[in-house]
């Protein structure tokens, strides 16, 4: 089952390059459904049988490359399959007016999906590097699609940041291979020893991944890239792409280095990662509050929300098992809820901007009358982003709060509360304006597909408030070995 998750997107990428335009629509839908089906089957398999390892080419791990599906990876595979499904339906409608972009969007879309699946399943450090590069290049390509100057500029920044990040990562991998003679993550987990070489390697890997995840203060490339791309591209980038490098970071710290991460060096570094997260939350929220363009507001909101993910490290490393478990659940739930909600948010905002023809927050006046469904989708996703009950975002932040209390790190507790208030501030700014009665603009009509795909994703984010036991039990039964669960 596992290789299907690679074969389907790769094969569909080729089909989208080769097939004539008129066959594409149906082909893409078929591929999406196959993809979701494969993801669900694998999830069920892992849920029943526990973690699965798959030796590619029948060569066992240190010589060959293994794919590993555990609870965390199948959760993320399902996330990316579902988000990709709705984004793709949205994109099919949205891109109708972008004929040139459409031709090149789909191959890149499938390559992006293939690299994401490859990353969620990877059991090998170097393979992760190739996956990261594939992901980064496909993402940069999606940003450049319109060929417009600001987009190209944003793409160049993004590309340079991504390249620097992956080289730092590769340098760390090179050192680990030079020191231990293997690249397989589970094997390295057994071998790692607390020494300078290991610390330098983990440091380089972490810096590279922080750069790619756009964690404050390395976030500078994200807002123009995410805010400047086409709406479906922004949705994919914010919901999935930045999560990939965070996922690798979590794997490295909490899975591969789980034996040694309470060593004083790594323990302090984990607190440092939390401080970066705090910076991201405060700075990102403030910038979102100040943003004049509504897409930039949402992009800065991504910067802020990524900060919460970083709290996983101080809450889970060197604390009690209970606190670590709660932190794990909270961070993973946050990742899921943010993935659904942020994709919905970018999609609904894309529809709003398309309808009013301008991107300024102040121009949103009157949308509550004219485009109510998209605004409702935006509202639902905002509920989850703010962390109001009932939503996936609320449950996630609640778990993180509990973890902060359980590990008696009250400073993270305060941060979580302040961050929630700041989020509310910038979200309500949009609402205040959108409920102004008098419209200042002409509205052009938009397809209802755009409205309802965004609404569906937002609804999933809310529904996770009621059904968060499902992903959590999956994590609990087969999470990372060293994840404190």
């Amino acid at each position, binding site marked *: 089952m596992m290789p299907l998750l690679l074969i389907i997107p790769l094969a569909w990428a080729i089909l989208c390059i080769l097939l004539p335009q008129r066959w594409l629509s149906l082909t893409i839908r078929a591929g999406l459904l196959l993809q979701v089906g494969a993801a669900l089957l694998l999830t069920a398999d892992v849920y029943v049988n526990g973690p699965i390892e798959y030796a590619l080419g029948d060569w066992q791990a240190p010589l060959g490359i293994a794919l590993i599906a555990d609870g965390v990876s199948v959760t993320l595979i399902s996330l990316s399959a579902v988000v990709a499904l709705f984004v793709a339906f949205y994109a099919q409608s949205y891109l109708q007016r972008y004929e040139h972009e459409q031709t090149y969007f789909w191959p890149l879309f499938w390559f992006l999906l293939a690299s994401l699946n490859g990353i969620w399943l990877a059991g090998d450090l170097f393979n992760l590097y190739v996956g990261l*590069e594939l992901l980064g290049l496909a993402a940069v390509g999606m940003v450049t699609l319109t060929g417009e100057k600001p987009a190209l500029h944003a793409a160049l920044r993004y590309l340079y940041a991504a390249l620097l990040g992956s080289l730092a990562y590769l340098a760390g991998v090179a050192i680990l291979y030079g020191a231990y*003679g293997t690249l397989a993550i589970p094997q390295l987990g057994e071998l790692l020893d607390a020494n300078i070489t290991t610390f330098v390697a983990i440091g380089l890997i972490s810096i590279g991944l922080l750069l790619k995840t756009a964690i404050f203060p390395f976030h500078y490339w994200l807002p123009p890239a995410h805010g400047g791309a086409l709406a479906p591209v922004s949705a994919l980038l914010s919901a999935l792409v930045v999560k990939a490098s965070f996922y690798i970071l979590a794997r490295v710290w909490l899975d591969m280095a789980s034996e040694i991460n309470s060593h004083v060096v790594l323990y302090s570094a984990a607190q440092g990662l939390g401080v970066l997260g705090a910076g991201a939350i405060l700075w990102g929220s403030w910038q979102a509050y100040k943003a004049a363009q509504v897409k930039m507001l949402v992009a800065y909101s991504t910067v802020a929300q990524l900060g919460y993910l970083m709290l996983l490290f101080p809450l889970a490393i060197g604390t009690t098992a209970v606190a670590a478990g709660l932190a794990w659940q909270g961070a993973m739930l946050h990742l899921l809820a943010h993935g659904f909600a942020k994709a919905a948010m970018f999609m609904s905002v894309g529809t709003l901007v398309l309808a009013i023809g301008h991107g300024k927050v102040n121009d949103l006046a009157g949308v509550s009358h004219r485009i109510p469904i998209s605004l409702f989708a935006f509202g639902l996703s905002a509920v989850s982003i703010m962390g109001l009950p009932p939503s996936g975002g609320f449950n996630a932040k609640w778990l993180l709060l509990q973890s902060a209390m359980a590990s008696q790190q009250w400073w993270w507790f305060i941060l979580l509360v302040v961050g929630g208030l700041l989020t509310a501030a910038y979200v309500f700014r949009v609402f205040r304006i959108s409920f102004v009665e008098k419209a200042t603009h002409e509205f052009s009509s938009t397809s209802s597909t755009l409205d309802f795909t965004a609404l569906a994703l937002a609804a999933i984010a809310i529904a996770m408030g009621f059904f968060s036991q499902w992903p959590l039990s999956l994590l609990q039964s087969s999470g990372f070995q060293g994840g404190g669960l």
Partner: protein
Amino acid sequence: MISFSVDFWYAGIGAALIALSLLAFLLSKRLLKKLLAFNIMGSGVFLMMVGMAQTQNDGAADAVPQALVLTGIVVAVSATALALVVIRRFALASVVAALAAENKAAENDAAENDAAEKNGAERTGSDTAVSDTTVTDTALTDPNLNKNGDPQ
């Protein structure tokens, strides 16, 4: 403990190359220079990868890191080519934008040109010879510098 070996020496050179090109990457403001720095940094990482691994193998060739580096070289050339393509397209867009602005500026009255000049003075403080085109260009180039929007 450490005796001089060819592999160890080149791994050390690789480390020095990484540090040197990091310096150049962060300090340089020119896109092509940064790209050169990225390529040399990559070479440094590759040298470290092969050199360090082969010191563990008593100086004998280790096929695995060599194969990884071969993959890395191809990935690096893909990334470089991609960056160059985007740079070229970006340069093209800049020229066309600057030309369009120039055409418009020729049609517009002097007052708006003054505004552009002022915007330029705010940004560069010097370099007035090419200010009208450069300013418009930069205003479009860097979103964060576009304080008062498009002068037109």
